[in-house]
């Protein structure tokens, strides 16, 4: 492998973005090349430095509760969110209700007529 092939993709190698086979070829070159070897070592030192230098920013504890509160306020301002149902679902529900009422009514009438036609002893 030649330096000209390696140099433009050193960052991708460092970032683990190369395929396994290609990465192995790179490693072989970097271990033996007096120019590219120090270059990748410098990039690795920089990475290590960045990770040690950067403060570990964490969300303050009250942010979580602030967000929960803001979301509750948001849902209160938009009550329609809880009611949202697809049109077909509402249609199906109304049909079901109509059938239930209809059949219940029919049964009432049927029972009534059966009672009326009961033979008397």
């Amino acid at each position, binding site marked *: 492998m030649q330096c000209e092939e390696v140099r433009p993709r050193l960052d991708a190698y460092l970032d683990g973005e190369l395929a396994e086979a290609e990465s192995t070829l790179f490693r072989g070159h970097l271990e033996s090349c007096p120019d590219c070897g120090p270059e990748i070592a410098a990039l690795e030192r920089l990475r290590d430095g960045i990770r040690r*230098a950067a403060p570990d920013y964490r*969300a303050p504890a009250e942010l979580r509760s602030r967000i929960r509160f803001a979301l509750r306020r948001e849902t209160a301002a938009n009550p329609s969110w809880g009611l949202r149902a697809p049109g077909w679902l509402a249609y199906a529900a109304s049909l079901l209700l109509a059938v239930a009422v209809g059949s219940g009514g029919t049964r009432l009438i049927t029972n009534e007529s059966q009672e009326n036609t009961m033979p008397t002893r």
Partner: protein
Amino acid sequence: MAWIGERRRRSRFETVVLPHLDAAYALARWLTRNDADAADVVQEACVRAFRYFDSYREGDAKSWILKIVRRACYDWIERNRPAEVVPLETDAGPEGAVNSAPAALDANALLESRSDLRHLDRLIEALPPPLREAIVLRELHELDYRQIAEVTGVPIGTVMSRLHRARATLRRGWCGKG
């Protein structure tokens, strides 16, 4: 029972988003460079994300929320610190981008830095936002190129060139260590 639906929706949102709150805050903190501003922006971004939560599909929740937080950060900077605004989706040349860095850090401040690591931290803060967010997403959030492209809305080739330029700038500034 509207309130049950609301509560479920909110609870699902919290399950998806809140595990990434530290990452969201850290990105906002790096972009706004201020604790209180970062918290405000993250809260605003979460409310924004909640409004569009119906469009969220199961998948990479971290990239999804970071993308919204990032957008909220730039909107906030545009409103509150218009002097810092740099074009987001277009890339200037390597020098052009570096020259457009906000003048938040002066040379004296750099010279006064006592430790190398503090110096490096300030160099990262001084990077122009497109380079800063690339290096933060890669090195601190450990996102891969595809995820960084998703969060920042640019092609992978642009992610690669921004990372390369960010590292070159940091190495130049981090005297004697690169």
